[in-house]
């Protein structure tokens, strides 16, 4: 009888499983660590362009050029609504004669309308005055900080097809009507 090779030596090898426990341990440690250090809320800052007079003590601040050519576009927030004005004139509401942008019926401010009007002004003054990026904000004493910040947002940029375009990014704050 011919020699027959052992059947035991030719059995198919069992699939070798990788030991995943060290890797699991790693993951279990790393993920909570990263989760705990992740910043849930992003913080940003709004840079302000001061009216020149307030920074008088510092050297190196540039003096205003010929003020003749400045438009001095100003947004004034009052309890009735938002006024827009320039060095020459106040833009009154053609319908009511009151604030340029009256409040909404529910008492909130109409920032989208403000944005639209500023886009309109921006296109009209293009190439004209020197300060086509600057805007002055002032408010009545009781106006909250959030409203001021929202007005700055409305004045900073406008969106076309989800792309931000520059509007009046240089914001100055004035204590005009306290």
């Amino acid at each position, binding site marked *: 009888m011919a020699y027959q090779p052992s059947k035991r030596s030719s059995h198919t090898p069992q699939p070798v499983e990788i030991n995943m426990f060290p890797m699991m341990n790693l993951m279990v440690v790393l993920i909570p660590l990263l989760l705990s250090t992740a910043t849930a809320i992003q913080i940003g800052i709004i840079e302000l362009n001061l009216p020149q007079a307030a920074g008088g003590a510092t050297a190196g601040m540039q003096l205003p050029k010929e003020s003749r050519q400045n438009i001095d576009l100003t947004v004034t927030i009052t309890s009735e609504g938002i006024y827009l004005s320039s060095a020459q004139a106040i833009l009154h509401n053609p319908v009511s004669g009151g604030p340029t942008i009256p409040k909404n019926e529910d008492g909130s401010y109409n920032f989208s309308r403000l944005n639209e009007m500023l886009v309109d002004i921006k296109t009209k003054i293009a190439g004209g005055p020197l300060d086509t990026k600057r805007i002055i904000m002032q408010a009545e004493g009781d106006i909250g900080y959030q409203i*001021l910040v929202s007005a700055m*947002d409305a004045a900073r940029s406008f969106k076309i097809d989800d792309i931000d375009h520059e509007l009046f990014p240089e914001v100055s704050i004035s204590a005009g009507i306290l």
Partner: protein
Amino acid sequence: MAFIPSRIKKHDTSPRGVSLNLTSMMDMFTIILVFMLKTYSTEGQLIQPSQNLTLPSSTVKNPPEIALDVVVSKEWIMVNNQPVANVSEVVQQPGLIIEPLSRELQRYASESRRMEEMYGVKFSGKVTIQGDKELPFRTLIKVMATCGRSEYPNMRLVVYQKEA
């Protein structure tokens, strides 16, 4: 014919490990890990939002910078977490300049100028202002006017970023 159980298998005591299939879990973890590493910022929190106030939210994209920290909470005006003036007193006082705040800021400014002379750390007059979102403009403008007159004209307002 009736089924007869195998005699060999009956005495089979070789360990038949019930292995947990971890592959799908590993996939999940790997994706989460990569995602978290991507969003991980090495800068950390440069500005710690203070207690007792809610910052306003804004669509602004500018990242925060380190600067002298002026906090206007509901009760206190603080410079680098040291209270210097009470908000309710500030509201009542006439004029734009808050004297105690001005003194404190000038102290920091002179310290910074000394640092500039000795170690060359440039004094830029930068200050970050954290205010509660309900802070009236009257108080805010007083704080800002005081900063402006006290050698800190470069003000930044700290806000929460929100999606537009």
